[in-house]
């Protein structure tokens, strides 16, 4: 039993309690870890980018309404690009591949040029249906071309005008496990790709999630161990004590298991964004251990050889900065709690939970590690003699911080570059843009764009206000609406029920739209058979009141789809008052997502800065010191934005977290420097000496910390998924700029303006 005096410092009492109950703490930690580990199995993975959209968006509601009226199954698009084959051979290839895809379990319906049936002259009514590519007659190439030409409006998306690109659309059975089905599709696709006489590609919204999923698993399997290895090596290089390396890693590992254990208890889903939480938490978690072990070693070197006293002194010095760092890091990530983007929100929630767990476990477990470690700590570089090079660098640093001309120029340069770069930052809501430029999805996108009219499908839902759509006059109005939409430069093609109506009308009555054809098509419910009815069902509702028009749009950057949808809605509402109109589709959602991302970035950043500033002011008990401490991170944030602008890296559902990570982690360097200065200021007569000593003692710790944390993040640069790669690079950059700006600009501010009234930490330091 250890006696604790009533006058003992609160931190000492905490440390005493931890050491006294160390076995209980270890046991409870182990039990909780086991429970959390069990809960990990409940985590659900969802990498479908569309699922990250806010549920309450008007455009999302519109699209959901459209889906309710015209349910569209999740489809995979297969594209083949042929060079020098006959038309018949190309079609034969598609038919053969189509049969193979159709035989896959989980694939419901495969449509390609060989399965398309169109109205043809013949049969009982002079109008029958036949395959465009006849299955009973051998057609010559010219006959085939004639049929394709005649049916262009019905086959446009399946074969390009120059016959070089053919596509195939397959429906995925939504009742089956999507990953399993898509894995089968992907395997067959790869098999076909190996022997295909042309180049083949595969794409579709359902494939995005599959490819992201695959990239995530690849990264998780490669990058996390790599991150661990690098961090371990760096830690060992510093600690030279395996136990300390293991302790530093174990604290974070347990925090991670707890974090994801909590996720397993919630309905929230694991995504590619949450997959980077471990790689973010490891450097953050070990950073605390670096400060603790290093400070403990320094105090030991300064003569504090008492085991308990050394631990207490270490935590007396570090408790506030550690707590402050954790709470500001927590704020940086918790600022995403209010975002409407589910991926980002989940990431924010669980990263901040992880930060809290890492803090708690660091405070609980690291004193126990130090207690059990009876060997004297190894002295670090700062306690040893500095090398000549280090001294030269330090001298240059001193010259800079005490030379107004230099730092004024530096601040001006940072501001100028920051503002110029900031205005170039792009925000991208289109999930396709997240894939590498050479990826299958991007190539497919480009090919469809080039050969088949476009890759963005926008839908117009027209509902007649008074009666069913079964008169020629009504369909002539629909034709005018289509003509108007088609005249827009962004629209590469239009699909609707009208080509079929035109075909049947021409065959029956010799005019494009006839009452007889409409009656035959639209009033013969059930008479013409289920296949015919199912085709009609794709374009017109059973009550014949609503029809769908699909606009095949070209891929354009910016938010033009939202503008197009609004202008179409306005035009139709104004000129066709008999119709209710709804324009919706994935490209509109992407555009809206862009605005949501901007809103997320602005609100989360504002929240993070305000929260961090308040915490800094509160814990340093000085608005002045809090204001100074936040300056480096503001400049760092501006620099990161500028670099993103200059390098063309867009803010998307993943990279939106870069700047908040910068604020949440980068602020730590300012905190540690400021806390150090407040302590050393009491030991020296003037500010300059205190600043030099702070920079000497804390500078190397901060830089080493930056190096370890930054390298941990830089591992993400090896990711195969560009947004994760960008995240890794820019978080590393933000760490570097945050630490360098803290070391460069805080001394200037403290030298010029001081700290004002003695803040709390100075009082604490006196103790």
């Amino acid at each position, binding site marked *: 039993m250890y006696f604790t005096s009533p006058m003992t410092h609160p931190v000492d009492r905490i440390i005493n309690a931890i050491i006294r109950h160390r076995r209980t703490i270890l046991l409870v930690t182990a039990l909780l870890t086991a429970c959390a580990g069990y809960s990990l199995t409940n985590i659900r993975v969802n990498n479908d980018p569309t699922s990250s959209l806010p549920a309450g968006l008007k455009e999302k509601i519109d699209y959901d309404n459209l889906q309710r009226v015209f349910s569209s199954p999740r489809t995979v698009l297969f594209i083949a690009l042929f060079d020098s084959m006959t038309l018949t051979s190309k079609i034969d290839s598609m038919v053969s591949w189509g049969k193979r895809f159709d035989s896959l379990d989980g694939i419901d319906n495969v449509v390609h040029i060989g399965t398309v049936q169109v109205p043809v002259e013949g049969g009982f009514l002079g109008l*029958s249906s036949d395959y465009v590519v006849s299955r009973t007659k051998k057609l010559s190439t010219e006959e085939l071309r004639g049929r394709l030409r005649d049916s262009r409006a019905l086959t446009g998306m399946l074969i390009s005008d120059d016959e070089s690109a053919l596509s195939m659309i397959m429906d995925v059975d939504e009742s089956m496990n999507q990953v399993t089905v898509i894995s089968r599709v992907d395997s067959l696709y790869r098999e076909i790709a190996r022997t295909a006489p042309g180049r083949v590609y595969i794409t579709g919204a359902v494939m995005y999630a599959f490819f992201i999923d695959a990239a995530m698993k690849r990264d998780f399997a490669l990058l996390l161990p790599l991150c661990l290895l690098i961090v371990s090596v760096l830690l060992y290089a510093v600690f030279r004590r395996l136990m300390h390396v293991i302790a530093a890693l174990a604290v974070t590992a347990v925090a991670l298991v707890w974090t994801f254990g909590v996720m397993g208890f919630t309905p929230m889903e694991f995504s590619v964004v949450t997959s980077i939480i471990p790689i973010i938490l490891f450097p953050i978690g070990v950073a605390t251990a670096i400060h603790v072990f290093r400070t403990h070693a320094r105090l030991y070197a300064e003569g504090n050889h008492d085991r308990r006293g050394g631990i207490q002194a270490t935590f007396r010095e570090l408790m506030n900065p550690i707590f402050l760092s954790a709470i500001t890091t927590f704020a940086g990530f918790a600022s995403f709690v209010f975002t409407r983007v589910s991926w980002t929100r989940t990431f924010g929630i669980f990263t901040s939970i992880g930060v809290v767990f890492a803090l708690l476990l660091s405070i609980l477990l690291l004193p126990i590690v130090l207690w059990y470690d009876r060997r004297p700590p190894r002295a670090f570089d700062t306690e040893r003699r500095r090398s000549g090079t280090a001294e030269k660098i330090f001298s240059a640093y001193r010259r800079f911080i005490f030379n107004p001309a230099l730092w004024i120029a530096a601040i001006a340069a940072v501001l100028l570059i920051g503002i110029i770069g900031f205005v170039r930052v792009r925000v991208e809501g289109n999930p396709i843009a997240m894939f590498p430029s050479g990826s299958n999805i991007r190539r497919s996108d480009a090919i469809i764009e080039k050969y088949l009219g476009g890759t963005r499908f926008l839908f117009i839902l027209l509902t007649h206000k008074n009666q069913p759509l079964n008169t020629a006059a009504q369909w002539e109005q629909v034709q005018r609406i289509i003509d108007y939409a088609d005249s827009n430069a962004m629209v590469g093609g239009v699909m609707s029920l009208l080509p079929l109506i035109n075909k049947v009308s021409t065959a029956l009555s010799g005019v494009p739209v006839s009452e007889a054809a409409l009656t035959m098509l639209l*009033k013969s419910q059930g008479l013409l058979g289920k296949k015919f009815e199912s085709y009609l069902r794709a374009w017109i509702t059973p009550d014949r009141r609503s029809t769908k028009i699909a606009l095949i749009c070209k891929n354009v950057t910016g938010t033009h789809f939202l503008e197009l949808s609004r202008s179409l809605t306005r035009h139709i509402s104004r000129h066709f008052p008999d119709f209710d109109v709804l324009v919706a589709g994935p490209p509109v959602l992407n555009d809206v997502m862009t605005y949501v991302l901007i809103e997320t970035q602005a609100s989360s950043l504002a929240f993070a800065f305000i929260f961090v500033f308040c915490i800094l002011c509160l814990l340093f008990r000085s608005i002045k010191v809090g204001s100074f401490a936040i300056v480096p991170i503001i400049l760092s944030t501006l620099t990161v934005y500028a670099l993103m602008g200059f390098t063309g890296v867009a803010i998307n559902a993943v990279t939106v977290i870069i700047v908040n990570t910068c604020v949440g982690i980068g602020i730590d360097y300012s905190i540690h420097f400021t806390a150090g200065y407040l302590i050393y200021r009491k030991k020296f007569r003037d500010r300059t000496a205190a600043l030099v000593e702070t920079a000497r003692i804390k500078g190397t710790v901060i830089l080493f910390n930056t190096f370890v944390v930054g390298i941990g993040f830089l591992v993400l640069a090896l990711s195969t998924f560009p947004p994760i790669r960008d995240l890794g690079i820019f978080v590393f950059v933000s760490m570097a700029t945050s630490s360098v700006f803290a070391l460069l600009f805080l001394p200037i501010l403290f030298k010029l303006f001081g700290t004002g009234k003695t803040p709390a930490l100075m009082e604490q330091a006196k103790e």
Partner: protein
Amino acid sequence: MRMHIPALGFAACLAALSASAVAPHSLFSGTWCVGREGLVITFIGKDSIRVTSLTDESIDGRGTYTKKGETLTATVAKDSLTLKMGYRYQVRPDSTVRAKITFFTINGDSVNHPRRWLRMKRCDPARGVIPQFDDEENEKESDE
């Protein structure tokens, strides 16, 4: 994109045609298969027919017919759709029937119709007795 425009009403007319073409009536009551599209016509009583399909169970139409000389008129109505068709017919020595449309209206509007002869044969789908058809489109016999 699959389409099926077998026109039940039309088939119904054919059924009616065959029923009246091969008097006495009792000889033609029962089930007939029409063309290669799998339409099946069942004669019920003196003037009623039912048309179904071998390949699509959702096809189900009912109608009536009248016969006058070598022509026959059939009508199939469902909801607000009324199909009316006139035929010339021939009974072949092999007990099959050939028919050709002479007029076709949809809700009273006259529309274009085929010029080719079509054929129907007795069948019993329930027992798996389904005759094979030549390709109607290859029947190039001109108007008579």
